[in-house]
């Protein structure tokens, strides 16, 4: 689509290479992608029982990604700045708006308030991981958005979609009211909640139809 094309034309493409470089050279400091890296606190050896290492493996969208993560880095910042998965948005960074919602073992969580270290070995799914990786076929809930022209500015959309996908795993056939409760942890400031709910219900419908 037109807009995709335009997004990729912009000069960010260089950074993608760059952060991969950063990942490979984990521990090496002072590359532009070394967001939040601090040379002084780099420690290869755990200093005590239970102390964490910085080089960890995260399973994101079905792939194991080995990355250098500071103890205080949140999952949202890790996804956005270490893995380039900017579909996960930061609306408040305080577990209040849901824009950063991702699935951790299929459960919706506010990734802004999860330390990356705490989800080692867990299955993390972001908005980028919903569509079929090979065919590009959209997830039924994503398709529901397309079908109903859900959302306005869509900054909240990835969070709403992830919350819905997570909720549908526990209740695949919700009523409108149930689904509203299920995705009530997400804020939309365009406040087009009616159409959002319609789109998400359509997504649930799509999912049931397969």
């Amino acid at each position, binding site marked *: 689509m037109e807009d995709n094309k335009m997004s990729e034309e912009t000069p960010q493409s260089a950074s993608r290479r760059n952060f991969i470089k950063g990942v490979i050279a984990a521990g090496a400091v002072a590359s532009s992608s070394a967001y939040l890296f601090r040379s002084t606190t780099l420690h290869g050896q755990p200093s005590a029982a239970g102390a964490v290492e910085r080089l960890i493996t995260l399973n994101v969208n079905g792939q194991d990604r080995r990355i250098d993560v500071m103890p205080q880095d949140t999952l949202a910042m890790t996804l956005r700045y270490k893995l380039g998965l900017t579909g996960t948005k930061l609306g408040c960074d305080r577990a209040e708006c849901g824009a950063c919602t991702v699935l951790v073992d299929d459960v919706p969580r506010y990734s802004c308030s999860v330390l990356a270290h705490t989800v080692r070995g867990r299955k993390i799914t972001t908005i980028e991981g919903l569509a079929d990786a090979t065919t590009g076929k959209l997830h039924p809930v994503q398709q529901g*958005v397309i079908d109903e022209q859900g959302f306005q500015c*869509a900054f909240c*959309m990835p969070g709403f979609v992830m919350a819905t996908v997570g909720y549908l795993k526990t209740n695949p056939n919700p009523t409108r009211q149930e689904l509203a409760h299920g995705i009530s942890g997400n804020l939309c400031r365009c406040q087009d909640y009616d159409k959002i709910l319609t789109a998400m219900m359509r997504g649930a419908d799509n999912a049931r139809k397969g």
Partner: protein
Amino acid sequence: MANKLIGQNYTTPDLVAKVTGKAKYAEDYRVDGMLFCKLLTSPMPHARVKRLDTSKALAMPGVKAILTADDMPGAAAGATLGENVQSTAQAERGLTNEPLYQGEPILAIAATSELEAAEAVEAIDIEFEALPFVVDPIEALRPGSANARTQGNVWVRPPAPAGGRGASGDAARGRGAAPPSPPPPQVTVWKWTEADFANAKEGELPLGKFSDEWSFGNVDDGLKKADLVLDETFMTQSTGHQPLETRTAMAYWQNGKCYLHGSTQSTVQTVASFARWAGIQPNQVVMISEYTGGGFGSKIPGSIFMAIPALLSKKANAPVMMRITREEEHFIGRARPGVIARVKAGFTKDGRITAIDMYAICDNGPYDAQGDARTAGTTISLAYQPQAMRWRGLTVLTNTPPKVSQRAPGGMQGVGIMEPILSKAARRLGIDQVEIRKINAPSGKAPFGPTLPNGKQAYVTSAFVKEALDKGRELFKWDEKKAAFSGKRQGTKARGIGVAVSPFAGGSIGFDALFIIKPDGRIQIQSGIGNLGTHSLFDVHRIVAEMLDVPWEQCDVVFGNTAKNLPWTCVSAGSQTAHAMTRAAHAASTSAIKKLQEIAAKSRGGNPEAYKVAGGKVSGPGGSMTFAQAAQKAIELGGTYDGHEVPEELNNFTKTSAKALAGQGLMGVAKDTYPRDGQSQSYVVGFAAVEVDTETGAVKVLDYTAIGDVGRILNPRGLKGQLFGGSMLGLGHAMTQRWAYDQHYGLALARRFHHNRPPTILDAPTNFIGDAVDLADPETPTGIRGVGEPPVGAAYGAIMNAIADAIGDDAFKRSPVTADILLTSLENGGKRTHETLTAHI
């Protein structure tokens, strides 16, 4: 115009990028060597920097540059920042050494990581001298009280020139009709007397001297002849815009140009304002904003703070990303000014409003004068068509975050102030609520606002409010609900219904449209509209496909980057776009059709008028040509056909773009020069049913119906979304959203979402109906007007009216109407006990 696309649902072409997470908002861009910046902000509501030593911070590892107020260009009086923002010498500059509100940025530091930048900010050696401050507008008028600025406490504007509405938000009403700019307002000291305060009863707005005034008709006579006169004071609250995307921005310099990835409502219109803020030339600016996470008026031409990463980037010679946190956004993210008003309204026993005498205070914040109090007055004069009206106002400065237009600026406040009075009058007079609104509804070329020098009032292009009220009455099942609910209780639950009428500016005129029919037959439409979620970016261009009779899928919309040769476009604000840009698209399409006909006639012979454009072809007596062929021919012909010659009346911005695109195909380009008689106003009527828990004060909105009189329906799903979203904003103002300030220190207490309380999906009405009367506006060729603003006031008024219907007229005199207010009033026999005149509690 046919109806193949207009009025039909479709999927906007940006939706897949949005739903897959590929859509890039400002913070999603990465550039090699990108630095991060953090701000040092004022800890005090009003202060002066006494000592500043940056040497220690500069010496810290990773720190690359520090930007202070000294690096910012000065503010000049009278400069126009984009279309909607007029600068004064006292305007903000992005960074300051005399902060006028808590959270105002003092300096910015760029470092290789955000952590280093943060630690450097903390290492800055800075000392402030606390200056007198005030966070409450009424307090600011007390004799001897502190002034928000050293120069004074009130903006005093010279008398409004012909055309009336000097408010910044009113520029949206149309460039053609816009009056010449008045001389810039001045900050002066303006206090009321002890006697003024003593003369007002508890909860009544004192009637001290006011600086602003307009009127029409004879108000005193009107009040004298009225059968019922009500005198009520009401306070509407200040609220942050709180777009979900904060005003994060990233900038870098390349070949003398500043590339700015920012969050803005308007693409083209941001170039000039950003250039002004950063002190550079517009032709040095490349504005990139493909997706914006909401603005609601707070990012009309972007944000002044975009200048910070731009200038830091220049200083550090590296790209700079400025991530704005939610808390910073609370302070620098703009807000709707609260309006405190006292209205004396006279009614005949038949319910006709004889006169309105209105006094209004605008809680302006510390910077540029906002017109909300004034617009509240003109909105009332339009919505309820009083036979006479006088408005008096004061724009009071406070040391609170800067205010700016927020969705229905002033309009929402006006409706909220007047609607409860109208409802009370209807109850007193025994008239049905819908009826009393129909009795006073605007219709046809309804007049509004002050008497102009020509002795007449301004008037609207059209108004079908009575039709909207009738439609809503039916869809909402008003009469049925009235019988079942109105003022009735079952157990501990009281129910009530309410209706409100809300007008707001619905479109401007005079902009350009530009597209090219390419030799491959596709139509490339250049758009300078921002992609802020209204869908108007795409909606308005469907006019082109409709008029050229091609499938929408054959069109490509180019947007979001001012290096891509875009036409001069209105700001994406104030419900202007759908009106203004469909007119421009209509004009450009008309010019393209004419060119197609001429090319066909030239190529195939015959009279151009004999050729018809349909089915992707231009056909006539000599046969037909595909668009691809016509485009090829246009390139061969050159001149006006491929854009090498363009109409003289085009804006220079468009001319430059057309020049760059010339020779690529058949160019459709034109300025909207269609006549318009009157000012374009849109209307929404809202109907609400609520249930109040009389033991807890909690309110639930059961049903809500919004009916628009917004011209022809352009995009039904978009319309419904705007109606619902706008209604929810009104609901938030009626029920939840607030600010809180500690008055002793002048500091914000409500800084988080759960403090400010934007409504959630579970606060939304259980049943929602959104529709429109779908009657074309007679003064625009497309019949289309904007819809974004008026739903806000409609829901605000209707929900408050429904609450009053459930538990009584005198339970509240301020919004938001929260559980505590209702419960204490219920305990007090239905009479309010809350404070009316204290802001931000």
